[in-house]
């Protein structure tokens, strides 16, 4: 029974770990709607220390302070866009995990589609390529010659 209890705890713990974020209870806003907005914003902001985590996931102290700042800005009446703009003003576009479409990021956004188009064109050419038989441009005499050679070789093989 003890073992079963322990197993349950571990299982429950691992399930909890899947949904656990770095946000600590004392950071949260009292208003659930505002807190939800803070979470949404945090998931779009890069932890500039760890670089590939959102500030929502990161335990870095700077991420924690950025989360606190996001909540301060929300309480001060900022819209979600205002909060993101506030961070971009200080850290640049780099702080956004979802890059904006700008002249610098066009290739990033549309490059894959351009490659796809190229791939389709190349694949289409290969698929439509005529087989050797269809493109045979030997004269009747040459065909006869080839035929004779084949006969000869096959005859030789049988010997």
């Amino acid at each position, binding site marked *: 029974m003890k073992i079963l209890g322990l197993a349950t705890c571990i299982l429950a713990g691992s399930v909890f770990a899947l949904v656990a974020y770095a946000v600590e209870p004392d950071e949260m806003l009292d208003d659930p709607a505002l807190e939800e907005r803070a979470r949404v914003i945090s998931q779009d902001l890069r932890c500039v220390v760890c*670089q590939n985590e959102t500030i929502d996931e990161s335990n870095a102290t*700077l991420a924690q*302070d950025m989360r606190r700042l996001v909540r301060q800005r929300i309480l001060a009446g900022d819209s979600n866009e205002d909060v993101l703009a506030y961070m971009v003003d*200080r850290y640049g576009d780099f702080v956004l995990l979802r890059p904006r479409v700008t002249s610098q990021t066009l290739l990033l956004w549309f490059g894959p589609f351009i490659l796809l188009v190229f791939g389709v064109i*190349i694949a289409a050419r290969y698929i439509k390529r*005529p087989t*050797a038989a269809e*493109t045979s*441009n030997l004269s009747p005499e040459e065909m006869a010659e080839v035929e004779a050679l084949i006969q000869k070789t096959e005859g030789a093989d049988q010997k």
Partner: protein
Amino acid sequence: MNNAQPTRTGGRWTAIIPIVVVALLVGAFAKRLIDVESGQDPALVQSVLLNTPVPDIDLPPLPDREPGLKTPDLKKEVSLVNVWGSWCIACLSEHPLLMDLAEQKQVPIHGIAWRDDPSASVRWLARNGDPYDLIGQDPVSEAAIAFGVTGAPETFVIDGDGIIRYKHIGPITPDVWANTIAPMVEQLRQ
């Protein structure tokens, strides 16, 4: 035999596409590698605050080290703002250089004691020397975020009008001082 022709009508030019693509990729990767080798690591966040006024800060002083650091203090003359903490190992490695600069009165250096226990900051300065003019405490990264700081140490060059002119990420080495920061300070004073 004499009218041998390519039997593929797809055209041969397509055959060079993979080679061109691979060559472009190799080129792009090589450029990045060389950039990183030569110190232009794209993972180092370039500051968007360059050539903008220093942000509004009003940081409290360390115990018995009045006053703190506030924005008007940075609008008087060319100065450095060094973000540091007693917990920061790399800060210790640049510290002797800062001490030298302070001793030679090269340029005023202001400190932001970032996310540090004030008593720890004070002990650290007592042990390693205190090169700073003004020091402000930044316990919750208020100034650090305002300055777009991503780690310590970071050093900002501020001109006499309080405009951020340069940001150095990581410890200042003698090389960085001699070749980058010192000439810039000199130029900004003119």
